[in-house]
């Protein structure tokens, strides 16, 4: 089944059209990487999919349920958007952890407050996730006491603690220096091996190639090319894609 289905998505910022008729489906267990130059619309697509930006046209379904529809040219969002928000998690470029909460509270707050799940149970799960990430000794630390890589791994755990059907990553390593990038990519790779459904906007070409089932190249608000990583990277069809990839092959 499709976890996510986006149909004919349109988005403008004033006169600038950032998404033009984008359609995209993501299957259960699939890992999709979106690459492309800055301003190509890839982050906007993610922000529209997670309702941080509102679409100007098109449809979004999660798990076969309609979250966004366009009726008579008017975009209509589902009444209970929070029910849809439970289906996905989003990992930000700048982590956006809550600085006044400990690591553990960062992880537990949403499951306990939003999902109203029992505290003890959530605590056990979160500690288990931290152990998996090698961060169990940081449970009582505050975000400011962690390195960027550790903060990003905590923010991945925060998203996982909500048990989403699909996880979005918005340039998860762009705010990290190369030394710390590796530890975050390793975690995402591990999630891919566990068949977590993921959509990753990234500038890490080698990583996208290694981890994805499908790679999408976007430019000017459209999907220029998509396919298996070995095809997009090895047997590139579009001149625009080739041009873009050349910058990364030094």
């Amino acid at each position, binding site marked *: 089944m499709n976890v996510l289905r986006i149909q004919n998505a349109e988005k403008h910022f004033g006169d600038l059209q950032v998404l033009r008729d984008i359609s995209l489906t993501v299957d259960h267990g699939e890992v999709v990487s979106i690459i492309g130059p800055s301003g190509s619309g890839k982050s906007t697509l993610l922000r529209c999919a997670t*309702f*941080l930006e509102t679409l100007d046209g098109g449809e979004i379904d999660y798990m076969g349920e309609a979250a966004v529809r366009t009726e008579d040219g008017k975009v209509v969002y589902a009444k209970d958007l929070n029910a849809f*928000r439970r289906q996905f998690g989003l990992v*930000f470029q*700048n982590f956006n952890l*809550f600085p006044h909460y400990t690591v553990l509270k960062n992880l537990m707050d949403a499951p306990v407050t939003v999902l109203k799940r029992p505290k003890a149970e959530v605590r056990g799960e979160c500690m288990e996730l931290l152990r998996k990430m090698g961060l169990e000794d940081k449970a009582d630390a505050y*975000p400011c006491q962690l390195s960027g890589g550790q903060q990003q791994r905590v923010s991945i755990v925060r998203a996982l603690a*909500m048990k989403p059907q699909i996880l979005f990553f918005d340039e998860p390593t762009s705010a990290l220096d190369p030394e710390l990038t590796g530890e975050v990519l390793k975690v995402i790779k591990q999630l891919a091996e566990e068949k977590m459904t993921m959509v990753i906007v990234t500038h890490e070409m080698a990583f996208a190639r290694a981890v994805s089932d499908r790679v999408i190249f976007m430019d000017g608000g459209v999907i220029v090319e998509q396919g298996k990583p070995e095809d997009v990277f090895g047997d590139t069809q579009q001149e625009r894609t080739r041009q873009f990839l050349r910058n990364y092959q030094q």
Partner: protein
Amino acid sequence: MDLLTMIAKMSEGLGRTCAIFFLTLLFSLPLGMIVALLRMSKSKVVSGVVRFIISVLRGTPLMLQLLAVTYGPYYLFGISISRNKLIPVVIAFAINYAAYFAEIYRGGIESIPVGQYEAAQVLGFTKAQTFLRIVLPQVVKRILPSVTNEIITLVKDTSIAFTVSYQEMFTIGKQIANSQTSFLPFVVAGVFYFAFNAIVDFVMGKAEKAMDYYK
């Protein structure tokens, strides 16, 4: 009149000074939050009106506002001036300080990165939960030094109540100074305010330190 009698007489007014101080804080701190939220309202009319009111309250002397609140009802509507001056004093002070607190709150709220709101929204927090659990605690930490400034000013501003002859410490001191033709009561008043603010400084320093556990 010797110094000790002077101090004893002025101390009688300290309770009223404290009453102005604590009641003003009690009302203006929450009122400031309401004003700040209205000031940030999406409605241009609401935010515009509130903005104008704040600019009047900050742009005219507190003494003038106090006179207006105390004697305005009599001159405008013939309502007799209340015998308990504490009520108009606290009303004038609370409204005036709410305007200042509102602008401090607004600055604090607007300084919280948009990413905090976005993270909370994606996690499914309601707007109220986001404000109370995520934004407000961080705002409190950021605005504490500015709030301390205002509180220190308030301690000294309580002396303005002498303009409506409310018998707080400074008013009594001024009366003694007049009758005894002595400057000494003003020195005593200065020491009182300084000691009061030393306590404020100490308490607010503790509060700031208590929030030092994160950056």
